[in-house]
């Protein structure tokens, strides 16, 4: 979420989801929320159906939410900066921007204005395929609304230009004075349940808890003192993608992986597999023997959320309790117990009577969590920042001023995706999730309920393309990219545009990430899952064997 942090000084959802009920217009882009954030989607639907809020959906796929939208823009995948700049262009031309707000609360507007000058609707239409009249209509609708809110998810961030895309959305929100007020805001929807918490608590190579930089001496000293160690490193560590690359170069020799399955979730699986194999020592801690765990030297059995106490932080920054409902299965143990035990054996004592004692330590070193105690969140969670025990928490960010002081506009030009379709690989592949499954399927595919509803992978393909390929729903096709190929069953659907094939990534039998490209956004280091070029061919016997 580096883009938002640059613009505002903080990378989280600015407003609670219930705020959409107070918006005049909601813009949702790159987020299939009815499937990925179903309860947030309820709020959007309620806003549209009961409060008459107008909804703009910008998505290459005809997602279910389109049914509720007053305006749907269908850009070609990977052209986000272009259409957003197009909106900015029209809003400025029509004088709908919030001049007062821009003057008082932001900087960098002149550069932005100069940059978007050339993004007139015709030019944007050429790049994105969005008809210029639709673009203008969307710009006027968003520009005239007060307040308007923006929601986005991985459809925006999983590109090599992911950070640029986010900064562009931040430009749009600030241009119309929509940040720092009820019913407005810009809201990145977090995928996995505790992504927010993992980031907040310092599971990042460049920051300690609460986004305190490892390179800051004062911060470093504070942690050294609390943890009772002499010299913490002040150089930024490796990101996940860099870690794997470093194993190939022999720089990283051992990895300790807790609760992740990069062999299915990360791009270019063949590459990851090779990286993992080149490790001298791999420890995996998980509840199942995942694809990644198969390569481990030692596997440590952790427990599910139902067997542990603790907290999760939701996408709205709300810190909420997790409570143990059942005893751990077999000899499996809570991940916090495992880490403490391992630490002890390495000569460093971590002694906590319970997770609430860990939270007590977190509070002392993390200003944004300082006021959060288990007692206070017993009934209801509190959204950070919560600097003290008498502080109610902060549902809306940047109310009076931005976390970084002034909001920063970024002048950004459109760049092409790393790999576009060509003669040899004429289709665009995009990957994503479906409602019934979750991430790499390690949890959702173990029970009968969710598999009953969505038992096997179905790749979505447009009816016209289906005719071209000579296939019907249920036929198998081979999808090949420059990195590998998989065999998948197809379903003919209006959801993807012509020339685009959509493959969910939860299924280990046909791991979509064999195909995806290991090109990453230079700042956020998010891989480009959403766009790569593939070839699609009908399987001769139609059965897939």
């Amino acid at each position, binding site marked *: 979420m580096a883009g938002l942090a640059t613009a505002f000084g903080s990378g989280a959802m600015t407003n609670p989801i219930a705020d959409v009920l107070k918006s005049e217009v909601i813009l949702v882009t790159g987020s299939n929320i009815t499937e990925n954030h179903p309860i947030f989607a309820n709020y959007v639907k309620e806003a549209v159906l009961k409060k008459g809020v107008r909804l703009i959906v910008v998505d290459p796929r005809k997602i279910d939410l389109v049914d509720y939208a007053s305006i749907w823009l269908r850009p070609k995948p990977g052209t986000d900066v272009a259409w957003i700049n197009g909106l900015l262009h029209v809003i400025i031309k029509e004088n709908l921007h919030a001049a007062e707000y821009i003057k008082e609360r932001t900087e960098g507007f002149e550069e932005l204005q100069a940059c978007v000058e050339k993004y007139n609707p015709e030019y944007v239409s050429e790049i994105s395929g969005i008809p210029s009249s639709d673009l203008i209509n969307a710009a006027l609708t968003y520009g005239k609304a007060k307040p308007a809110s923006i929601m986005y998810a991985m459809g925006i961030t999983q590109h090599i230009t992911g950070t640029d895309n986010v900064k562009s959305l931040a430009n749009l929100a600030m241009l119309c004075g929509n940040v720092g007020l009820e019913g407005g805001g810009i809201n990145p929807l977090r995928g996995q349940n505790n992504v927010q918490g993992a980031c907040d608590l310092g*599971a990042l190579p460049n920051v300690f808890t609460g986004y305190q930089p490892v390179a800051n001496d004062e911060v470093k000293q504070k942690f050294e003192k609390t943890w009772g160690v002499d010299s913490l490193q002040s150089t930024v560590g490796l990101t996940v993608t860099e870690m794997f690359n470093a194993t190939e170069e022999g720089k990283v020799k051992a990895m300790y992986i807790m609760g992740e399955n990069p062999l299915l979730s990360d791009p270019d699986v063949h590459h990851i597999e090779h990286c993992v194999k080149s490790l001298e020592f791999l420890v995996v801690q998980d509840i199942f023997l995942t694809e990644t765990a198969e390569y481990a030297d030692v596997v440590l059995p952790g427990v599910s959320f*139902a067997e542990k106490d603790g907290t999760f932080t939701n996408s709205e920054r709300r810190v909420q309790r997790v409570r143990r409902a059942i005893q751990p299965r077999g000899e499996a143990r809570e991940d916090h117990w495992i880490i*403490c035990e391992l630490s002890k054996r390495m000569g460093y004592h971590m002694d906590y009577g319970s997770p609430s004692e860990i*939270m007590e330590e977190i509070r002392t070193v993390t200003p944004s969590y300082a006021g959060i105690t288990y007692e206070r969140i017993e009934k209801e969670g509190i959204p950070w920042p919560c600097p003290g025990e008498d502080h109610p928490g902060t549902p809306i960010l940047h109310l009076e001023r931005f976390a970084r002081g002034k909001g920063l506009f970024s002048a950004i030009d459109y760049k092409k995706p790393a790999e576009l379709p060509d003669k040899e690989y004429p289709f665009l592949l995009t990957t994503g999730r479906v409602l019934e499954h979750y991430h790499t399927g390690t949890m959702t595919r173990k029970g009968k309920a969710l598999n009953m509803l969505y038992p096997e992978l179905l790749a979505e393909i447009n009816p016209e393309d289906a005719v071209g390929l000579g296939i019907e729903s249920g036929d198998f096709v081979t999808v090949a990219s420059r990195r590998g190929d998989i065999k998948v069953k197809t379903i003919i659907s209006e959801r993807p545009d012509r020339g685009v094939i959509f493959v969910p990534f939860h299924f280990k039998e046909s791991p979509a990430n064999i195909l995806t490209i290991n090109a990453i956004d230079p700042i956020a280091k998010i891989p480009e899952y959403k766009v790569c070029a593939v070839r699609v061919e009908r399987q001769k016997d139609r059965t897939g064997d």
Partner: protein
Amino acid sequence: MVNLTIDGKEVAVKEGTTILKAARFAGIKIPTLCYHERLNPIGSCRMCIVEIEGLAHPMTACNTPVTEGIIVTTDSPRLQKMRMETLKLLLVKHPLDCPVCDKGGECTLQNLIHEFEIEGTIYQAEREDRESLYPTPLIHYWPDRCIMCLRCATACREIKGLGAIDIDGSGFNTSITAVNRDKCESCGECIQVCPTGALTENLGRYKGRPWMVNRVMTTCTYCGCGCQLEINVFNNRIVGITTKDDIGVNKGSLCVKGRFGYEFIESEERLTKPLIKKDGRFHEASWDEALGLVAEKLKGIKASHGADAIAGLSSARCTNEENYLMQKFMRAVIGTNNIDHCARL
């Protein structure tokens, strides 16, 4: 403000308030069956009838707005008799299956029958096995137990914006059925609002009676919405998921993953012992062995190649406390900032 009198009590409420809400505000209880806080009034059950001075016929309190100066009576022999008749009429086709019904013990209908002291068997319908036309295999619909209150269809339409189900047929053969099968998202909103045992989870039956299960409030493990849900536990086994209407961002709603996606927890494939790989195969080990080996290997690699030769991945599925400890472990114990997780993904 509108002034009115309910059972002799003077009440002042905002214009547009229903009589039911005004009565609740005044602390007066009116029996209801179809009314649900989260839904617009449905007005299908007629349990909430009240008398208004000057009107010949009783009115349904849940969907009648207050008017200035009205005098309302919520309890009278006539009202009681009418409510009793309403209930008895329901029971003509409703088998009192309470002992084997999942809802027994927390069923609005059962409670009302108890409250009105209705005794003896009234059930007259021939029990026929009607094929269920419910739109999702995860939910079982019991036509006989259904009192046609329409909460389910209303919730599906109003809360989910879907309208997958509706009422169908007439008389004894009325039932709830799929009208838009493809729209159903198997979210279970309909189960959550059903006041009876007409809708039950299809993942298993007779798993535990409501009063025997322990309900533990926690946060969903799947997506960033962070819904609040109760894990229902019986004998250290998970028997279902329920919600509370006034708690959390979800206010009683869940999606299919949160409501039905709990089976993985008790999967046979769960790891229950540490494993150590020897000659390419995993062998079960004790915690002491496994942790000892990990500590020894990590210490060795740190000594020979430096702390930065070790990297850790934390998890967006683990708790805040665990993420904190993981980064503390990598930074303070190993001595590297090579710590990340897959959130970027």
